């Protein structure tokens, strides 16, 4: 590999946490005393707070000046990689979020709108949401989209809630208490099914890297409420028998939900409804160019479904009567609310702006590029010592990502995937994604190139892995003790397993560390 690796070192500030900072009496803002006239008119400002609500003691807040606060958080941000470099974080579809879309989302028409405003004052916003609904219908073949879900798991839960409402409307909910999923479908499907009160049946993988049709047939029965499945799955494996799967589940009376979290290799290529699915879900904060914002959002899991299921979706639904846009609350069969209001509008707006910029041809081309990039990566990665592909002999196609394993490297050198992750950050490259739980493939990793990075970036990523492999085989201690160029050394993850060591609040932290002056 001729790609030259760039030197990198993170700044090290040894920054305390904000609660350890400050000096008694220091303030960011000195509020002037009220003039005598004002005081005479209004009285003591503290009297505005009812006595019962006043605290007895001053809050234990850090006493710092405004610049000290700014410097502190700037330093903290400098000590992270910030997801601003090469981040091929599989199953997350990392994309650059265009600044122009951010600028649009920060316009006052967006930031100062309130969901309780009258519909007549929200016509532009409602039109935009409705238009985006129709775009997603075009991409999926579904008949109705809603944006209430604040993320992918929320959307999966929406599907479970709709499934429940649908079977209840037919008097079959008591009987249909099982949801079928696969071991490589995103675990939030199984989790939300369980949260919604269903029993979960998980199918294991067979020879081709996906569960066999026979396994599905053995699982379905008159108790089947729904199938919830990713395709391609969490390893990038595409199950080509999905049309038949849908038929089997429909024949048993169940619904089929397509978790399209891994949609990037299929945009403009495959429509869930045409395969027969009753519902699907898109992640606007992944596939559609809106920021991921960290786990927990704000994000949007756009849930779409067939006309048959549309009466059951959460309220309100953004609708158009031919003249004006409005929020339709009058939906007696609705499953209710999954989340407040009708969605994170700024995220919908950014996704809308992204797809309008891409166009129908653009998203289809982006799919092609992301699959091509993944295949390109595979050539480079499989040439690296110690790297193997999951289900190496399976002929099933991989689309936008591939699950690899470092089991051979671990066996031969003792260097495992977490060591390699740590070492990657020494080169200024974000640690790669491993795998969701449970790990089917030992020492897994799952890069997803997407359509956005140039060939040079992919070459750099491959070169970093090749370099780390050379180190693992020549001087494994370098990798096993990484990172060396980071702001902090290895984080002690074991502390997270020990309730005596982690703390959710500063007060708990002080109590557990038995720091002097700690209060209970």
């Amino acid at each position, binding site marked *: 590999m001729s790609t030259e690796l760039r030197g990198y070192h993170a*700044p090290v500030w040894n920054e305390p946490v904000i609660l350890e900072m400050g000096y008694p009496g220091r303030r960011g803002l000195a509020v002037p005393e009220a003039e005598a006239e004002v005081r005479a008119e209004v009285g003591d400002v503290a009297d505005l707070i009812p006595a019962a609500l006043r605290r007895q003691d001053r809050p234990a807040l850090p006493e710092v000046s405004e610049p000290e606060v700014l410097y502190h958080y700037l330093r903290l941000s400098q000590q992270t990689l910030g997801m601003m470099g090469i981040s091929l974080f599989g199953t997350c579809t990392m994309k650059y979020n265009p600044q122009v879309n951010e600028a649009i989302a920060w316009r006052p028409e967006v930031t100062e709108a309130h969901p309780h405003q009258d519909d007549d004052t929200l016509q532009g916003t409602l039109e935009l949401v409705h238009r985006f609904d129709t775009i997603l219908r075009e991409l999926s073949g579904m008949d109705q989209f809603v944006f209430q879900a604040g993320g992918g798991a929320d959307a999966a839960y929406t599907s479970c809630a709709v499934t429940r409402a649908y079977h209840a409307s037919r008097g079959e909910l008591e009987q249909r208490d099982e949801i079928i999923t696969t071991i490589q479908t995103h675990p939030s499907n199984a989790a939300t099914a369980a949260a919604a009160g269903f029993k979960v049946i998980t199918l294991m993988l067979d020879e081709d890297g996906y569960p066999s049709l026979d396994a599905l047939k053995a699982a379905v029965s008159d108790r089947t409420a729904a199938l919830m499945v990713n395709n391609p799955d969490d390893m990038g494996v595409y199950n080509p028998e999905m049309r038949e799967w849908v038929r089997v589940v429909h024949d048993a009376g169940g619904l089929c939900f397509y978790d399209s979290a891994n949609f990037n290799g299929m945009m403009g290529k495959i429509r869930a409804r045409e395969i027969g699915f009753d519902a699907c879900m898109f992640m606007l904060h992944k596939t559609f160019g809106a920021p991921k914002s960290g786990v927990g959002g704000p994000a949007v899991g756009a849930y779409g479904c067939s006309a048959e299921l549309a009466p059951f979706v959460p309220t309100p639904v953004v609708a158009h009567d031919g003249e004006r846009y409005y929020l339709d609350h009058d939906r007696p069969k609705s499953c209710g609310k999954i989340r407040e209001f009708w969605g994170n509008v700024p995220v919908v707006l950014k996704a809308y702006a992204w797809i309008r910029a891409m166009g129908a041809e653009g998203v289809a081309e982006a799919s092609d590029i992301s699959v091509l990039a993944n295949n390109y990566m595979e050539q480079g990665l499989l040439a690296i010592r110690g790297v193997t592909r999951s289900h190496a002999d399976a002929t099933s196609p991989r689309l936008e990502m591939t699950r690899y394993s470092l089991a051979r490297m671990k066996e031969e050198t003792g260097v495992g995937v977490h060591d390699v992750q740590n070492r990657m950050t020494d080169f200024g490259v974000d640690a790669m994604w491993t795998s969701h739980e449970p790990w089917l493939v030992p020492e897994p990793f799952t890069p997803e190139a997407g359509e956005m990075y140039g060939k040079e970036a992919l070459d750099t990523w491959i070169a970093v892995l090749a370099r780390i492999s050379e180190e693992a085989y020549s001087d494994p201690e370098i990798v096993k003790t990484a990172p*060396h160029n980071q702001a902090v050394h290895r984080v002690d*993850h074991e502390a997270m397993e020990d309730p005596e060591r982690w703390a959710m609040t500063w007060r708990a932290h002080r109590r557990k560390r038995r720091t002097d002056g700690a209060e209970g």
Partner: protein
Amino acid sequence: MPTHPIQGTTDVGVAGVEQNVERSLAAEVDGYRKGATLGLIVNPYAGMGGSVGLKGTDGPHILAEAKRRGARPLSGVRAVRALTRLTASRTRFSIVTGAGDLGEESALAAGLDPVVVPRAEQGARGEADTRAAAKAMVSSVDLLLFAGGDGTARDILSVVGDRVPVLGIPAGVKMHSAVFGTTPESAGDLAALFLDGSTAAQLRDAEVMDLDEAAVRADRLSARLYGFARSPYERHLAQNAKAGARVSADAELEAACRGVAARMREGVLYIVGPGTTMRNVMDALGAPSTLLGVDAVLDGALVGADLDERTLLRLMQGRETRIVVGVLGGQGYLFGRGNQQISAEVIKRVGREGIVTIAPVDKLIALEDARLRVDTGDAEVDAMLSGYLRVHTGSDHDVLVRVLS
């Protein structure tokens, strides 16, 4: 105000590795920790029978025959491979070994300085050596690493019980027990993690099973469950915010067992197989149980303990019956290894629909090809059992696993 440790200089690169290692808090703590003590026992004859087609090396006659056929010792070399991984790690430990080819030679070959326990009385070889070494070190070691097969595991278990954790370096012909690393290297890595006190190395009850070699040589398979050793395994820690925390595997399994116990119906006989998972079911019922044997439950109460096939068939007469089983050993056997009391005849009468299986999902995933296996001795029953089977892995959570015969 608490003071902060200085995090070290920024002047690093590969040359700065050592300096940076020093600033790691974890490394500092380790430095102050007293090193743990590793016990090593090598069964020098393990695996020799296999290399010359003898399906095991238990007993002096078979060993002599193996030697006559030109078999050479393998386990000492395998032990060195595992130890090399330990010495390459940053783990601090001292080592106690058996004398000569019982571990001392392997430790020396790996560059270690072992404390050697005396050999069994003059002339004793094989099992007696293993047992004597185990007995001599049981109270002084934190982990007993052994190189051998099922027979060696059994000998060690018979001496140490659950007093000290046991981990096997795979070197035998037969390895049905769940105490072995997949390779000598992985056993070495796991031992290092465990001796470091890492929470990634957890202990679990692992089946110690052994085939009756005489029966195997007569082409009959008959494995027995001899007991459970405390054995370390590597748990994958969630190192990523995206992965989130997972309910502990123990809690999930316990919930599955409680669920099965709660769904037991009146008037139905439940045959409960051996193993720790099945003990969870019996505990949920508040009934006593036989860890290594087969028990029967009727209306929530134990009606028979440690039963054989004949008694089971008698209890079943005129009663609707269910069989509750776990997955035994490292090779994923549902029937035919360690629970032969639940015979082909018993299974045939109960039928496939009457079998309730419980196993932790991690155990299913660790199986080769994620398949369960049956070997009841009756081809018809094996065929009936094969295909997809529901395994309870948690509260209201089933996994569909393919059964091979």
